[in-house]
């Protein structure tokens, strides 16, 4: 394609024809920001500015109508929220339980399934399709689907339990069973995501360390524990990071199965559901913003810990 005498890396604007109009020349020289600026401006307008406003709102007593006057009250919302043992701290606990349990099961199960799929086999294509389907299904619809299956009276879940001689369970309707049931739904829908990420990681590993360990007589478990897992660790952390952030922010499944306030006893009220309810069911914008800022800080903190861990893993290699 290129001329024989051409330098391998032409200087800036070298290719611009002499008859190129001035504005095109200018655009070409400033393309870095010309390309990036619209997206950056959009993000600034829709994210950074609202975020700043949320910080401001969290320092006011804004509530009721969005057009109502509000007063600056300093850190009082923060004191109120942090001393609120009726709603805020239980919501923190539920968020932690939901995310912790779902994430743990999803990673362990996801790893097991990814290992099963690692080596080629017949019918692989169909298994992969099955794994993809829950992942792309609309979460609200998934919530409704499980609502029917877990219905205490007509649901399939209690039918199946009946066949093996276990009595009916209240599932989503029970005060203590609702949260575990929603965790189950999350696991059903999102384990495939972990499988796909880990499988991509496994496929990118080279076979040599495995073969060397095999020649040394390592058992399958030893090979996984001491060869595959350490090599895969950066990918595992990415999976935990991506899935963890989304699990913390879970809303659709919880709201679709239990509605406002996470049910009548707030059984599944996580921080996100709580903040949503404060804003749009009770119009307590000031308080809601405070909860959101605290929630955001928690997410950033956890991400920071995980990214630091990933950097350490990479440095160790």
């Amino acid at each position, binding site marked *: 394609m290129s001329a024989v005498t051409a330098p391998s890396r032409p200087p800036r604007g070298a290719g611009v024809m002499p008859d190129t109009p001035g504005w095109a020349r200018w655009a070409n020289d400033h393309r870095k920001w010309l390309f990036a600026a619209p997206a950056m401006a959009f*993000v600034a307008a829709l994210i950074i500015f609202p975020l700043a406003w*949320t910080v401001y709102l969290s320092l006011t007593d804004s509530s009721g109508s969005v057009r109502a006057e509000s007063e600056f009250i300093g850190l009082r919302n923060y004191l109120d929220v942090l001393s609120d043992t009726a709603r805020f701290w239980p919501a923190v606990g539920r968020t932690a339980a939901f995310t912790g349990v779902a994430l743990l099961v999803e990673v362990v199960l996801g790893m097991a399934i990814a290992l099963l799929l690692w080596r080629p086999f017949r019918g692989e294509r169909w298994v992969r399709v099955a794994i993809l389907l829950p992942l792309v299904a609309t979460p609200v619809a998934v919530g409704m*689907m499980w609502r*029917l299956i877990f219905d205490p009276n007509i649901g399939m879940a209690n039918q199946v339990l009946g066949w093996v001689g276990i009595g009916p369970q209240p599932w989503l309707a029970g005060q203590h069973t609702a949260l575990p049931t929603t965790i189950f739904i999350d696991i059903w829908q999102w384990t495939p995501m972990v499988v796909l990420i880990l499988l*991509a990681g496994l496929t990118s590993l080279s076979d040599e360390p495995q073969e060397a360990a095999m020649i040394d007589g390592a058992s399958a478990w030893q090979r996984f524990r001491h060869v595959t897992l350490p090599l895969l660790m950066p990918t595992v952390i990415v999976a935990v990071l991506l899935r963890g952030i989304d699990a913390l922010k879970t809303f659709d499944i919880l709201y679709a199965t239990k509605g406002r306030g996470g049910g009548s006893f707030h059984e599944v009220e996580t921080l996100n559901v709580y903040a949503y309810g404060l804003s749009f069911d009770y119009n307590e914008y000031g308080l809601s913003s405070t909860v959101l800022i605290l929630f955001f800080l928690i997410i950033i903190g956890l991400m920071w810990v995980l990214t630091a861990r990933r950097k350490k893993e990479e440095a160790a290699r």
Partner: protein
Amino acid sequence: MRASAGFRVFRAVALVVVVLSLLLPLIWMVAASFKTNVDIYDSSKALVFTPTLGNYETVLQQANYLQFIFNSLWVAFAATVLSLLLGVPAAYSMSRFNMRKSALVVLMARVIPGVSLLVPWYYVFSNLRMVGGFTVLILSHMFVSLPLIVYIMMGFFDGLPDELEEAALVDGLTNIGAFRRITLPLSVPGIATAGILSFIFSWNNFMFALVLSGADTKTLPVAIFDFVGYASIDWGGLMAATTVVTLPIMVIALFVQKYIVSGLTAGATKG
């Protein structure tokens, strides 16, 4: 590497269990959508029943779902196209000029809880009397699709060697010309991946539409949510509605499986 016979049997059994636990609930949902409510309540009719289209008639005719299907399609399509227009050049610049800090700002959108943006948006847009319109809905969905597109496309451009562009410069194209005539055509697989995923995420989005849509602009997930909340649930109708929203996306997924997988796992394996 060859697997032993014992492992292959174990793997076959385990995979059958995995596939069944993933598919049976979905099959159950679709089956229920073809049952009368009497049959849904009757456990002896779990698998053998006389299929009916009654639920779909209820949903599509009485409940105005054709309008909601159109709304969902329009919002997801517009949000995806606009995000591609903004996101692809931005991702190109961020990749080629190594603008990692700027990229981080855009990707922050993936981390922020959506509710914290909804409150200020609701503030601003209800004062502008725009809540309930398509514009607000599309803008809010772009908040999901733009970072996704930037993220996927940055990974794609990072892996695209710049020798071809340099050759084009030597041949007399401007940098922008090289981007338009050389890089973009080569990026079609990446753009397809980003576009498909963006469409799916927008189609599935619930929370933004729950707050920002009106009676005429309601998207399918909100319509499904509104289906319950009355005294007793019309399970047949509800399952028909959930099938209407999930089936198209699952059929699409069957055809473009490769793209979806590469999009979802983008950036997961590189250092």
